């Protein structure tokens, strides 16, 4: 009726600093300018952003790079990346600062690492320990379900894999638990995109214009956020307050500071993509035996904007 086209966006998680640019774009009316009525959804199930876009039930999702590779390689799920959001790993290994015996990944020998039960975490940890000169076989991996942080602060595990430096880390800091973190990209794991926009093959094929419009609006939101980080964050926090879900401004501010450095790099603009990153990831995952076939990078992403 209003002549706008509906875009359903399934977030990777509940709204937080990483989504500031989307909320900024929404509040500033950039989506409307592009003829889009945005409908933001939180996932009911972790895999929703991927499966629902693949099934055409959602237009765009926010998800993880390796899962896109695997979805394509192992299950032939018809999704592609349409633009990276976070260009570096956020999923670091985290240890409590007071744990002095772990200064680098090789010190994890003989220790227990809590993770959410994904084989990706297992692969990261083993690769990192190995790259650091340790013996991955001597590391114990403990599935702690969804309660990562409690497991660490009650000393049930010595380190965490699967917690994010822009969320769990500042939250723990706020609660009085300073931490030390190890970036997978520093220890043998090729750099990867932590978060990206995904869309179903069918949507990409049938309605590229809509996706392009969506990405343009997102870019504008990002530009605004870059210029006015505090205002963008405030827009997000205000929106959440309206929903009566108070985000901790301190945590989100910290989070955004960390994120700002990861969403764009000197040689790579926001949402721009390159074959290299995908190829490295495909090779590494294949090495780790996480994928059985090696898809072409071009099957995994599209650069719609150029």
């Amino acid at each position: 009726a209003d002549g706008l086209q509906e875009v359903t966006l399934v977030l990777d998680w509940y709204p937080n600093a990483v989504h500031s640019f989307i909320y900024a774009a929404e509040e500033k009316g950039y989506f409307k300018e592009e003829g889009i009525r945005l409908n933001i959804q939180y996932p009911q199930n972790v895999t929703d952003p991927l499966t629902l876009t693949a099934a055409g039930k959602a237009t765009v999702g926010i998800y993880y790079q390796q899962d896109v590779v695997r979805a394509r390689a192992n299950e032939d799920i018809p999704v592609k990346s349409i633009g990276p959001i976070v260009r570096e790993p956020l999923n670091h290994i985290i240890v409590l600062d007071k744990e002095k015996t772990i200064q680098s990944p090789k010190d994890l020998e003989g220790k227990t690492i809590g993770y959410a039960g994904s084989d990706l975490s297992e692969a990261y940890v083993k690769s990192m320990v190995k790259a650091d000169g340790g013996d991955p076989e001597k590391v114990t991996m403990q599935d702690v379900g969804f309660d990562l942080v409690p497991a660490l602060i009650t000393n049930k595990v010595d380190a965490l894999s699967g917690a994010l430096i822009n969320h769990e880390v500042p939250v723990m800091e706020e609660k009085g638990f300073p931490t030390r973190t190890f970036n997978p990209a520093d220890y043998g794991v090729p750099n990867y995109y932590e978060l990206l926009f995904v869309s179903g093959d069918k949507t990409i094929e049938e309605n590229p214009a809509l996706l392009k419009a969506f990405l343009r609006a997102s870019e504008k939101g990002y530009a605004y956020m870059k210029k006015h980080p505090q205002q963008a964050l405030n827009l997000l926090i205000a929106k959440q307050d309206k929903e009566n879900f108070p985000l901790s401004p301190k945590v989100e501010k910290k989070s955004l500071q960390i994120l700002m450095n990861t969403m764009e790099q000197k040689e790579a603009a926001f949402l721009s993509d390159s074959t290299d990153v995908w190829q490295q990831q495909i090779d590494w995952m294949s090495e780790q035996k996480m994928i059985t076939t090696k898809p072409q990078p071009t099957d995994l992403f599209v650069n719609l904007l150029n």
Partner: protein
Amino acid sequence: MRKMLPPLIVMLVLLAVWEWLAHLIASPYILPSPRQIIEKIWLLREPLFMIHLPATLAIIAIGLVISLVLGIALALVMDASAWLERAFYPLLVVSQTIPTTALAPIFVLWFGYSIWSKVLVTVLIAFFPIAMNTFDGLRSVKKGQLELLQTFGASRWQQFWKLKVPSAIPSFFTGLKIAVPLTVIGAAIGEWLGAQSGLGYFSKRMMTQMDGAGVFAPIVVLSLLAIVFATIMTIIEKKYITWRKEA
């Protein structure tokens, strides 16, 4: 109000133990103390009671009604013939063993992110005890009374209303008393899996913030809700089901 005394005493003892435990553990993000939770509830009273409670209540109400209809219908179907009982019972068992998390994507596929996917989770959890207990009640109909009614030329409809329903009511109530807390938790789980409002949603959001008191505040509200419902059930039961023990 002397009847209120026993639960109050037990509750107080429990709260004291909890408070003591919380101080022992001294990690409010794992186990907040009752005092902290109550403070949090007071602090968050506006959003909790004005926005999230109504959202959850809507799911509970719709879920309970559908569970009742479905549960009773299934009980009737199984009571109607041994054939149908044998056919349906395994199905009910299966319905209870499928984790909602596995089905969640399908619910979303069909119902989107509407209230219905949460209602569905609620129904899936709550209809089973209603069905089983109502069925049990229907089976407890005394043969002698049924035969007599048949000699009076009672239609199946009349046999049902005059004999089966009253005979089944005590068991049905037990089923209801089991189901009512389950609709509450069902609604919470439904929201836990994905929602934009509701007490379960609120609790989960707080969990991502490691705000222990914030996690438990909506849960305490949920529990109180369940207790209120359960108490109403018990009062109705005590008032109307008095013939139970008379042969």
